[in-house]
């Protein structure tokens, strides 16, 4: 079966030779001992050094990794997984369906590229997945002799540096981007944590590069803020009424002042013009009104420790590190009569789009990528290759059912749930928002069905992985919002490890409490009955654990952690850890049979039944939901329930569909039609296109800033590494002087002005005879050289190479400041340029033009600042 499916696909033909090579090498490697395998790695490294071409060592490296995986994890790479690894190595996106073992595939390409010793980054979506993957796959790398690193949120700089220096590093996307930005604000080369970029494999590449692409990552600096204006503005809002003085636009979160409102405010403040640049009041007033009407306590934020903390509307989680920008945060603080903290200004920013393009070699994997292929091509130059599944897919995608309205739709969903779970088949329902999931939960309550609710609310997050893992159990009903539970497989029949952990946790805590309380062994109690089903071995090990004093000291949470991290611990510190491992294995064996039975039953019932409640904004997300069932050749069904007044259809379906279908449907029965599905797909495509356009627009604008950023950051890196500082300073000085002379020539500067400029810059008085321009230039430059050398030696009196350090510091600080100012100006330019369209001028072209002008100006100012700072400072 596997071979047939494989041979037909075009991808296989492309990689046929390599695959057969790898398969041939398998036997050779099987016969080698562990140590021999390890030396293979160094041999391959040497070969790579000689040929400088990775292609020459692909087959050996992959075969080596495969063998290592067999010996450490017991998992042998399928041929399709080999193809996936080859695709990843070719700088493409590998589309592999859920459950195909993407994490394992990454190991192939990662260990191949690690041979270059330049470092490989594997990007995951969150910290938990990063640590999980590093723990499991790290064993393969360790076996092969590679160093692995892991970056977590709470690591210090030196830890991060160490981890980034390893051959293969697992890191989240935001962590690596922020580290990059911080590196470019560092003042010491010891603070730099990242190595030069080499190769990057992005897991869930569609989520990182498309869904999150628009979010810019920003590091801000706080700046001085005058607080009285905020307080006064907050007072004024007491005298303003909604509707009379201003109108509220809830959708866009906007406030518009009416004529009356502006007049009223002007009267109160006794000013003529709210928009006066000398005394601007309008931003403060608008922010104050916004704070009053659109942002409410305990809905959008909470007050904790005299601070305002933002609450994410969608997930309900608090975000202590984020602040609203543009003065809004300060306005809310003023409203709540809390101390007003400093405003922040962007010091460094980058988007994911531009960050990942910095890697010379980029690849990614996802379960759903083909539909967004155009975007990947256009923006990232990554093509998408579909990798065939190891076993033929048995998923059954039913046509969508369309209901007349929401009411009939949800009823139908509930009845179907009832029907299906009564047969024993597990059901997974995916909703789009948290409210809808809770509403469905209520509905199912009425039907008296038991279910598990999984959404991003903090109460439910903790048990996220567990709920998702158990969603495959018989008669299980799980309600989940789309984003929840990514990365965890749903195994039909339930996941034993979770059951085992839970069971063991109960036993251990219970027994420990009992012993601590009663101080007798458990067997000599009435609780004997509880352990009747466990084997003798289990009981004896349990006894030994309970006698261990170290164990008895543990708290509940620590027991839980020990259980969770069980497989990560290779060298146990305490004896009870070994025993616990033993207990877990015992229980797992016991449950394994049970689980295999359940697995068969659920498979016979038809596998997991997925119900979608609404078409999402993109087909990708729909496919992700569908992909949760039918993994690795399991059977499964997916069906979407839609209604005519779904948001998507309402906004983008077009009026014709509405009227046509309203006429057709008179009762609650669903409409199953291919034509309908086609128009739904069309509507969805339109939404996708609109979103793509927005992203492309953002990318086009950001590209210019990106080029400027690259110039600045490259220069900065060079200076941080202490390269040729003196030469740079001299060049800067000469450039300034040349500019001055040119201006003099063009008569933009008078002679006297030029003298004043030079004297200001250098602090020395000039004595000039009337020289011609060339002679003047030479004279000025020579003067500058002399002054510079003089200052340098002055600094050096105080200590060895203090002058150099000082130079470096000045340049870096000035660069940072200028860049920060530049970012502000560019943001304003973005806004300003959008009005040019009314004059039939192309905004993007105007932006490019003015951005370049601004940048050249800033660079000029930077030069002046650096030279001035250096020539005019004195050590006190």
């Amino acid at each position, binding site marked *: 079966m596997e071979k047939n499916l494989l041979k037909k696909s075009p991808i296989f033909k492309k990689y046929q030779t390599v695959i057969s090579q790898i398969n041939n090498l398998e036997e050779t490697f099987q016969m080698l001992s562990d140590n021999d395998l390890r030396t293979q790695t160094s041999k391959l490294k040497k070969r790579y050094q000689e040929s400088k071409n990775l292609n020459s060592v692909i087959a050996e490296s992959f075969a080596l990794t495969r063998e290592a995986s067999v010996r450490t994890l017991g998992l042998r790479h399928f041929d399709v997984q080999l193809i996936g690894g080859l695709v990843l190595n070719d700088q493409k996106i590998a589309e592999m369906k859920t459950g195909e073992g993407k994490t394992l595939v990454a190991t192939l390409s990662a260990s191949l590229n690690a041979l270059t010793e330049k470092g490989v980054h594997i990007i995951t979506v969150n910290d938990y997945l990063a640590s999980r993957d590093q723990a499991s796959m790290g064993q393969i790398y360790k076996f092969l002799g590679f160093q692995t690193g892991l970056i977590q949120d709470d690591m210090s700089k030196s830890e991060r540096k160490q981890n980034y220096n390893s051959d293969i590093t697992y890191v989240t996307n935001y962590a690596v981007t922020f580290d990059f930005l911080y590196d470019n604000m560092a003042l010491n080369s010891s603070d730099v944590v990242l190595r030069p970029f080499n190769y990057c494999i992005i897991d869930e590449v569609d989520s990182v590069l498309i869904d999150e692409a628009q979010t810019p990552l920003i590091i801000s600096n706080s700046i001085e803020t005058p607080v009285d204006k905020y307080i006064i503005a907050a007072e004024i809002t007491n005298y303003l009424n909604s509707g009379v003085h201003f109108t509220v636009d809830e959708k866009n979160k*906007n406030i518009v002042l009416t004529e009356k409102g502006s007049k009223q405010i002007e009267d109160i403040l006794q000013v003529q013009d709210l*928009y006066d640049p000398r005394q601007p009041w309008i931003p403060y007033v608008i922010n104050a009104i916004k704070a009053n009407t659109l942002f409410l306590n305990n809905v959008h934020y909470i007050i904790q420790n005299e601070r305002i903390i933002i609450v994410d509307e969608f997930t309900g989680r608090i975000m202590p590190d984020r602040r609203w920008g543009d003065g809004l945060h300060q306005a809310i603080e003023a409203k709540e009569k809390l101390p007003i903290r400093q405003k922040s200004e962007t010091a460094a920013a980058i988007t994911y789009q531009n960050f990942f393009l910095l890697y010379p070699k980029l690849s990614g994997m996802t379960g759903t990528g083909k539909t967004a292929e155009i975007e990947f091509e256009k923006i990232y130059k990554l093509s998408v290759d579909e990798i065939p599944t190891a076993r033929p897919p048995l998923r059954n995608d039913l046509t969508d059912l369309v209901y007349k309205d929401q009411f009939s739709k949800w009823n139908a969903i509930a009845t179907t749930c009832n029907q299906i779970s009564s047969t024993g088949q597990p059901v997974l329902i995916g909703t789009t928002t948290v409210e809808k999931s809770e509403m469905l939960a209520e509905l199912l309550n009425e039907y008296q069905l038991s279910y598990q609710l999984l959404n991003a609310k903090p109460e439910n997050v903790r048990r996220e992985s567990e709920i998702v893992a158990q969603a495959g159990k018989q008669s299980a009903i799980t309600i989940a919002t789309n984003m929840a539970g990514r990365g965890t497989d749903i195994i039909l029949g339930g996941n034993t490890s979770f059951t085992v952990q839970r069971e063991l946790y109960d036993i251990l805590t219970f027994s420990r409490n009992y012993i601590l309380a009663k101080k007798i062994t458990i067997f000599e109690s009435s609780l004997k009955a509880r352990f009747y089903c466990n084997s003798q071995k289990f009981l004896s090990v349990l006894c030994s654990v309970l006698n261990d004093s170290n164990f008895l000291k543990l708290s509940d949470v620590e027991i839980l952690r020990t259980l969770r991290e069980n497989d990560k611990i290779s060298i146990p510190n305490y004896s009870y850890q070994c025993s616990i491992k033993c207990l877990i294995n015992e229980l797992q064996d016991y449950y394994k049979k049970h689980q295999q039975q359940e697995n068969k039953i659920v498979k016979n019932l038809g596998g997991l039944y997925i119900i979608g409640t609404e078409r999402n904004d993109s087909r990708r997300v729909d496919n992700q939901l569908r992909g949760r069932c039918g993994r690795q050749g399991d059977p499964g069904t997916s069906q979407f329930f839609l209604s005519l007044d779904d948001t998507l259809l309402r906004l983008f379906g077009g009026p014709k569909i509405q009227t046509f279908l309203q006429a057709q449907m008179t009762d609650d029965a669903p409409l199953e039609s291919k034509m309908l599905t086609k128009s739904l797909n069309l509507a969805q495509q339109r939404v996708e296109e609109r979103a793509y356009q927005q992203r492309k627009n953002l990318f086009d604008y950001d590209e210019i800033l990106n080029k400027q950023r690259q110039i600045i950051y*490259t220069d900065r890196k060079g200076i941080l590494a202490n390269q040729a500082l003196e030469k740079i300073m001299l060049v800067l000085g000469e450039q300034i002087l040349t500019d001055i002379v040119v201006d003099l020539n063009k008569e933009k500067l008078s002679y006297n002005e030029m003298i004043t400029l030079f004297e200001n810059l250098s602090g020395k008085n000039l004595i000039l005879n009337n020289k011609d321009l060339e002679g003047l230039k030479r004279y000025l430059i020579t003067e500058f050289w002399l002054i510079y050398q003089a200052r340098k030696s002055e600094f050096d009196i105080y200590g060895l190479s203090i002058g150099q350090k000082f130079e470096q510091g000045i340049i870096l600080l000035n660069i940072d400041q200028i860049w920060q100012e530049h970012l502000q100006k560019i943001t*304003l330019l973005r806004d*300003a340029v959008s009005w040019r369209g009314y*004059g039939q001028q192309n905004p993007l072209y105007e932006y490019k033009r003015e951005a*370049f002008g601004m940048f050249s100006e800033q660079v000029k100012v930077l030069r002046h600042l650096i030279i001035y700072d250096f020539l005019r400072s004195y050590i006190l």
Partner: protein
Amino acid sequence: MKSKNSNKLKDILLPRILLTIGILLLIRTGTFLPVPGIDPIDLDCYIQRTPVAKNLISTFAGDSAFVIGLFTLNIFPFVNATIFVQLLIAFSPRLAQLQKEGDFEGKRTISRLTRNITLFVSIAQSVGVALYLRPALFEWNILLASEIVLWLTSGAMIVLWLSEIITDYGLGNGSSLLIYINIVSNLPNLSKKLLLENSETSVFLSFTSIIILLVLGLASFYGIVFLQNGTLRIPLISARQLNQSSFQDRNRKANYLPLRFNQAGVMPVILTTSFLVVPRYLINLGIFPWLESLASFKSNLFVQLIYWIGYFVLILAFSSFYSSIVLNPKDLSDQLQKQAVKIAGVRPGVSTVLYLKREIQRITRFGAILLASLTIIPNFIESTYHLTGLNGLSTTSFLILGGVILDLKREVNDILLSDIYRDLYQ
């Protein structure tokens, strides 16, 4: 450093330039490839005999072509179709909405509509040609006529496709470039005609008239560039801008709203000329004989004056009409308010609307007057100095010439700008 830079430019610009020139050459040769089935000798005879046909054909093909070539219809069906679609947009709110949204779907629908209408127009025009050739050719039958229609229509659609290739992969806007080529290729003929017809009068006059022509031509060009590119900048202040900490940042003058003098482009001129051409056309066709008597007064200054006044008024009317569609003061003011931006020195709300209305009226009037005067100049020269043949140099052509060159310059600048950061790398 410099050479590396210009090298990169060559890599980007050269292929585009070559492609554009290549396609233009292709189309130019195509206009001379005769449509099979039309005997050129017959055609020539007929054209020499009937001045009406001569005039009409010269309107069509841009130069008095004696060959009905494959690409005779050239880009004109497309141009007519675009004008027609613009009119439709002005009158249909649904289409206006599509165009305003500016997303892929809207643009695609509108361009599809334009292309379909192009097809119809080209069929109609080729049918017209076929019918006109009826008295010209010896063997004329339905079969020949439909063949001609087929050839000409396919020719027109091929030109449309080629012009789109130029727009996408070459330099400049394909259709404008083609019109430009048409006009420019007419120039040698025109100057020849000019010299020939006017050398009969005194040589001295002809010399001065050339000078005057040149001066007026340059002045017109200057006027056209001013009209096309000139903008009135209305300074804007945004709330965000005011949020900056330093006064210097708050007071920056980079935020402005540019308003063009000539919002409507060549539309008013085209419409006016179409209006005013009607009586002349009717006279030519000889339908209304009583108009002939009026026409005999053509040299009468009085009639000329009426003509010019009519011209001015019509251009003014059309310009204001167009600018009111393109720039709606109320809309603009609402948009400004939504984004918390206001015009410097004007209170947001009703005052802004009034201010905008006043400003827009002012510049439209100015632009219209300028446009009208530029258009009148050739006619003026003709009648005062008794030169003939200046009809080919209508202001529309000038506008298009100027517009195309300016657009090209902007596009080359755009390409330069995208690449300009390279030489800042060390």
